């Protein structure tokens, strides 16, 4: 047969087989290595937990929320400026040289899910006017590419034109942070860009949500943690975990894009309604509370079927955040202008 023509030296044969077997074994062993393309790198976090002082609300007692109507999309910048001036202006929070992080809510590449790029651009422009160094960053939902989403939705070009640096948080190594006043989370992994910023501005879209009823400024903070953590929240008490997260990653300012709102269901697949408002506040809980109330009104006006309706006063993650001191969830302590 094939193999009877020559006799091979045993030493050489053993060498051959040994090398091939070693190559195979090495390949199997190294095969556990993920390779250089991965949407969700496993967070090899730095082990020492960091004590982060939760950002205290600047005014305890009464929170101010501004709601401004806009008649056409051309006046977006003017309306954003007006809504910020009504609560005291950006100059109060941002001084020259401060690092400002604008966090838009970009879950997927669906442009109705994300805030209007013109709103984000307006916020960037206003922050730069008072001297801030602006970064726009986000980490999209599990199973999509943040970089692609940011450019497909139009936020990347709009923000860069307005002078901000746009980055996807997924490329960074997250840091473990302790959550001191927590109920369900004891520690959480957060991306360093978020922790290193001086001013955090949350820019969400006014939307319903399938699990947490609404997703506005508080839920938006889930985009500052890696995908594995996002998943972990769902295995704990989601609403409580959102509240706990906001005690350490509390936005200094929330500007809610209500130019169009998603009703009936969300964050994907709902119906878009031209609601034409911008809501702003330094208190994220108050902003969310007022925004949910407005969303309830919008659903009333549009005539969403009672089967899908919700009660704005009874949204778990907003109430839980209020209890933990992130802000005011009680309409009596909120002044609306």
């Amino acid at each position: 047969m094939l193999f009877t023509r020559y006799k091979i030296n045993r030493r050489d044969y053993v060498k051959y087989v040994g090398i091939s077997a070693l190559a195979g074994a090495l390949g199997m062993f190294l095969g556990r290595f993920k390779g250089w393309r991965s949407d969700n790198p496993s967070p090899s976090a730095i082990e020492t937990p960091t004590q982060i002082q939760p950002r205290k609300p600047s005014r305890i007692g009464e929170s101010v929320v501004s709601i401004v109507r806009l008649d056409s999309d051309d006046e977006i910048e003017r309306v954003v400026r007006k809504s910020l001036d009504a609560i005291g202006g950006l100059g109060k929070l941002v001084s020259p040289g401060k690092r400002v992080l604008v966090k838009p809510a970009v879950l997927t590449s669906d442009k109705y899910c994300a805030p209007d790029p013109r709103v984000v651009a307006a916020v960037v422009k206003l922050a730069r006017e008072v001297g801030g160094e602006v970064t726009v960053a986000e980490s999209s939902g599990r199973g999509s590419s943040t970089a692609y989403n940011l450019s497909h939705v139009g936020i990347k070009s709009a923000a860069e034109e307005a002078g901000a640096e746009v980055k996807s948080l997924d490329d960074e190594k997250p840091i473990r942070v302790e959550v001191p006043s927590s109920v369900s989370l004891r520690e959480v992994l957060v991306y360093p860009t978020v922790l290193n910023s001086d001013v955090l501005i949350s820019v969400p879209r006014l939307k319903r949500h399938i699990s947490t009823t609404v997703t506005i400024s508080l839920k938006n903070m889930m985009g500052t943690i890696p995908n594995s953590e996002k998943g972990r929240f769902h295995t704990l008490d989601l609403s409580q975990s959102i509240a706990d997260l906001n005690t350490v990653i509390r936005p200094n300012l929330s500007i809610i894009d209500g130019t169009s709102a998603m009703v009936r269901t969300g964050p994907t697949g709902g119906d878009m309604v031209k609601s034409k408002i911008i809501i702003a506040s330094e208190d994220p809980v108050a902003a969310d509370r007022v925004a949910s109330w407005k969303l309830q009104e919008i659903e009333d006006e549009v005539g969403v079927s009672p089967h899908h309706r919700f009660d704005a006063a009874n949204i778990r993650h907003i109430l839980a955040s209020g209890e933990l001191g992130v802000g005011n969830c009680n309409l009596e302590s909120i002044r609306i202008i």
Partner: protein
Amino acid sequence: MVCLKPSRFLVLRIITVTSISLFFVSAPLHKILYGTGSALNLGTFKLISPLDWLLLNLGSGKIVLDLLLPGLIVIFIVIMFGRFFCSWVCPAGIILDYMNRFTESRRRISGTQSLEKHVILSAILLAGILFRFTAPYFYSPPGIVHRILIQYLTRGIVGVDLAALSLIIISNGLVGRYGRTWCRNICPLGTLTGSLSIVNLFRPKVEIDRCIECFRCEDVCPMQIHLVKSDRWGMMSCTKCFECLEICPVKAVRLVLN
């Protein structure tokens, strides 16, 4: 153990093969040309290896029209230039050349013909026609190595191909005691390209007047061709490694264009 000093052609070949492999593997970065040793795609321009093309047409029982031209182009190149892929493109060939360094001093068996390779090739083609079984595992060694590299570097996984490569290397050691036994006696793709290299430009030829019959060229030839006889048909299995050119002490070996 015979320790061979690497000739300059060997170095050149290693560089060429490594560059081509890296070029294929890094395709997602440069986006110019995608492919492996089995098939290439440059936008609308495609190329396909001859054995894969033949099996495709035989196995499906139809002539695949949009691959007709790519297959024929490669076959034309093989007819004109012979088995140069084996030395200048196939990474398995380089690996086997490296294995060459572990063999004992070879008994010269140059000139003896082996029919095994034709038997293997015919069996594969017949299996393709009869059972419609064309799974190309060992049929395309350059494809195997390129796939190993691509799968490992982009996904971090190893698959069937590593087992196939190991079997190639093991069978190379089992069957003979000279360099590229696989390439000479077993490789189906090599056999097919060898049988097709009819015109075979740039093949080495020994000038009888200058030859001193030291037979060093035949000793070093990985395909164990009877070079001194310089028979045209024996040269069909030449893989253009040019070792014979390097080693001849009187420079009696020259390249011939027909």
